[in-house]
């Protein structure tokens, strides 16, 4: 692939930048199409893993809210999942789930659980007792209290957890290529890509930009969902 690209580049402009293996921004612009599919796959892996992680962690947090004694065991188990290196998990899962998206997504999802769970629990704990009392005084049922008072007030903590989980997952998803699930890592480790200066910067840079972009999206979601935090007298 790299050689092919070099030939095309030479024919087009005659520059020997790529041949000398320097950093060539022009080449990235000309060959951006080769990063489109890995980028889309990377987004798919990240968003799916964080969404699954959020769904599981949310249920776990609601369970722990009712049964406080479960908090410790859940933190313990998700802590182990968080500690296990993703690369090791990919290959531990291989005999069971095989190569591909499933294996990559299980490993990435498992990694996010601790971060998201911890932030939801913290968010719920940080709800002021007065707000809860006022809700109870207004006659809210436990379920209404959760959805109308506690969760909206916990939202900034929850989003903070999602932001950390998302940024981390973008980074870890570069390793998904070892699980046979592609992503931007493919453009770093396949063949002799790792010594191809321009390619390494392009793939790594795209991952960083993706992390920042998804972070901005989550920040935007928070602003939209918590309008009361913006309503400050100027």
């Amino acid at each position, binding site marked *: 692939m790299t050689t092919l690209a070099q030939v095309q580049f030479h024919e087009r402009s005659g520059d020997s930048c790529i041949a000398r293996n320097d950093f060539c921004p022009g080449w990235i612009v000309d060959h951006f199409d080769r990063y489109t599919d890995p980028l889309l796959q990377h987004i798919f892996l990240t968003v799916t893993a964080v969404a699954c992680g959020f769904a599981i962690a949310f249920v776990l947090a609601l369970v722990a809210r009712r049964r406080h004694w479960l908090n410790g065991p859940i933190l313990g188990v998700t*802590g*182990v999942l968080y*500690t*296990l*290196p*993703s*690369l*090791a*998990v*990919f*290959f*531990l899962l*291989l*005999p*069971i789930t095989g190569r591909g998206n499933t294996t990559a997504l299980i490993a990435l999802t498992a990694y996010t659980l601790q971060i998201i769970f911890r932030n939801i629990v913290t968010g719920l704990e940080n709800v002021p007792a007065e707000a809860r009392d006022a809700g109870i005084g207004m006659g809210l049922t436990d379920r209404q209290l959760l959805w109308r008072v506690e969760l909206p007030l916990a939202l900034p903590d929850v989003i903070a957890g999602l932001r*950390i989980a998302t*940024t*981390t997952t*973008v*980074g*870890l998803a*570069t*390793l998904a290529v*070892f699980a046979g699930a592609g992503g*931007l*890592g493919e453009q*770093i*480790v396949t063949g002799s*890509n*790792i*010594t*191809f*200066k321009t390619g*390494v*910067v392009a*793939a*790594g840079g795209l*991952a*960083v930009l993706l*992390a*920042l972009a998804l*972070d901005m999206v989550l920040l935007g979601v928070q602003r939209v969902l918590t309008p009361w935090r913006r309503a400050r007298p100027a």
Partner: protein
Amino acid sequence: MMHLPLAFLSDFGDAIDFILHTREAQTGTVQVGGLAEVLDFTWEHIKVSGAAIGVACAFAVPVGLVLGHAGKGELLAISISNVGRAVPSLALIAFFVAYLGVGFTNVTLALVLLAIPPILTNTYVGVRQVDPDVIDAARGMGLSPGEVVRRIELPLALPSIFGGIRTSAVNVVATATIAPLAGVLTLGDFILSANVYGQDGRLAGAIVVALLALFVELAFATLQRVVTPRGLTLRDP
């Protein structure tokens, strides 16, 4: 369907056999696997990770202490963690390979960059969280600024600092798994060079790396408890 669970259990059995006994490599002629080789790679893994953590601590802890004491550079100390998280460890290693070349020193340097942000941020936050009344009291007793840092802020920030070191250590041990891409033969070589070690070797590598990461996490969690000043644990509800 009955033999399915059995099948993957035997994969794990074969992997454990790879850890315990040497065998002929996939490529023939040489012997691979066995405890001696596993320990060799484990030692290399620990060496490169330890060197990186050591250098990162030597840099990030003093800088964090000074910034925290002066109350300056908050934006830098906090946002370096966020930026650090956004840079994929694979891209970092690849960047060093492409621009500086392979080898122990370069891998260590890449891992140092990976390890600095959590330690720096946690040191800074740990110092800033020290009760201002305690520092006032220390000044009132005639402690110099240097003594305030060494005898008040550092001990009280230790749990937070070790929390940062723990995060970094686990992260570095995980990332050292891809060090063979940069020519340093850590445990990751079993995983990345399946053409030499075979499927059993790859699974064996994954098992040993996972155990090593859990061990490091446990060791640093214990260390974090040990360095927590008794006064801090007493105050906790």
